[in-house]
């Protein structure tokens, strides 16, 4: 389920925390990074690996917005619509995204290429409006810039 490298990392991390339960978030991050999402099977794996109940892991996965228990599209676009972005035109960005990708907020395209999510403040208020794709932030968006980002992603 996890690579040798990550298993080694987990052993290292155990030294930093007095309980294995504290590794629930780090381990879930590793699973999601390797597999793209956290399946029920992998939650059971994490529970066994750390010696905590499966229900606990399930509770954690469902609590945190960034953990996904279902597969997402190849490119996960997260667009901020909170106040600072809204004041600088995020509505227009959302409209363009929906039109261009043919999906609404919270949806995944049929070809599994795109997932579009509306997110809360990402700490990009001074460079609003913004969206992120994975860990990458795209800021000071304009319609032209947005088109460029999407065409670049299409080629990937």
């Amino acid at each position: 389920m996890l690579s040798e490298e990550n298993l080694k990392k987990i052993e290292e991390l155990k030294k930093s925390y007095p309980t294995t339960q504290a590794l629930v978030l780090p381990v879930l991050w590793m699973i999601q990074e390797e597999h793209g999402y956290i399946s029920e099977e992998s939650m059971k794996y994490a529970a066994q690996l750390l010696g905590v109940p499966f229900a606990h892991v399930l509770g954690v996965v469902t609590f945190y917005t960034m953990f996904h228990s279902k597969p997402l599209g190849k490119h996960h676009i997260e667009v901020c619509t909170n106040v600072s972005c809204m004041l600088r035109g995020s509505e227009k960005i959302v409209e363009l995204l929906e039109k261009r990708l043919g999906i609404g907020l919270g949806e995944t395209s049929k070809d599994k290429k795109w997932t579009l999510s509306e997110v809360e403040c990402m700490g990009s208020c001074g460079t609003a409006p913004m969206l992120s794709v994975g860990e990458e932030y795209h800021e000071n968006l304009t319609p032209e810039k947005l088109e460029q980002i999407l065409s670049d992603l299409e080629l990937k």
Partner: protein
Amino acid sequence: MEKFILPDIPGLHTIDVYESQGGYKAFRKALGMKPEEVTDEVKKAGLRGRGGACFPTGLKWTFMPKQTTKPKYICVNGDESEPGTFKDRQIFEFNPHLLIEGTLIGAYAMGVTTSFIYVRGEYGRWIRLLEKAIGDAYARGYIGTSILGSTFSTNIVVHKGAGAYICGEESSLMNSIEGMRGYPRVKPPFPAQFGLWGCPTTINNVETMCNVPLIINNGWEWYSKIGVPKHPGPILVGISGHVNKPGVYELPTGVPLLEIIYKHAGGVPGDKKIKAVIPGGSSTMIMRGDQLEGACMDAESLKAAGSSVGTAGLIVMDEDTDLIKVIARISMFYYHESCGQCTPCREGTGWLWKILKRFEKGEGRVGDIDLLMDIANNIEGNTICALGDAAAWPVQSMIRRFRDEFEKRVKTSPPRVEQEAAA
């Protein structure tokens, strides 16, 4: 003003440049002092927390028990998720060693064995930058065992969050580090008595920690003269919304809001008038544009103006802004981020949002304004943590200061005369 937290020095994020600029000098100096002398210096400097509550940092440090057999911990709060706030991100990117040095000094002063820097999950890129800096500091012997030939040993660990605003609340943050859902804890017991894994713990904001090396290097008297006496020091003001030059500006506390907006952030696009500002992140009370004269970015001044300094995330809204839309969006945020533990917050935030959506569509009902106020008043003060208050304050202040905006959106029946004429 000279900049101390985010100075314009190319390459400052690297340990070589940081050291060449006098970096880690404060930590060396602290190691030569008694731990309680370090705490005393921070206390006398008057440093107050930069995460929103403005609590005196030195005083907080004194709450940590001296005689204990348990390990002691620091949590550095880098969960930065308050809408309108984007300052800590600058520190991770441009001056991570200042944060590390401040944390080390705090660890020495309180006898801490491990410090956890909790960073929001969305900041993946910045977490890697911070981890690189921590790795370099370990390699140079600033972190680890028998640091710089002393008997002091301590560790720093970065803990990645996973997208929950509530984890910026200190007790929720601790539960998250312990590998649980981020539910806030009932206080007391306070973290200094019963924190991480039941051990003494102190939680400080990222920016707060960055002020500590300045105090140790230059002395409390020097520090206390920056900005206003009751809330001294440099402060990172993040300005966003309708301004020409949004961004993070390092300024002395007590800087007038109008000076931030017009002098530093280049004024409002199209020279429009300011309708409203939110001075310190979405949880702070909204102010009218005509209330800004004399209001300054410090705890006392903004309290007098009927708001608070919060995270100093200033959001500016011009005369054309639809404030109902703004408050509906803010309420949606708190509804989404409420952890669900306390009924008034879990149910109330969603209720507020639904009513505000009605107003947004121009379908507000007679009595809705009072209903909003009633719900907000019943959330405030009735929850375990401050998220409930943070959801109530923007609604209360918006109604108090912009009641006319709500009244305009109450759905009115067509006038009787026209109805009769139509019939």
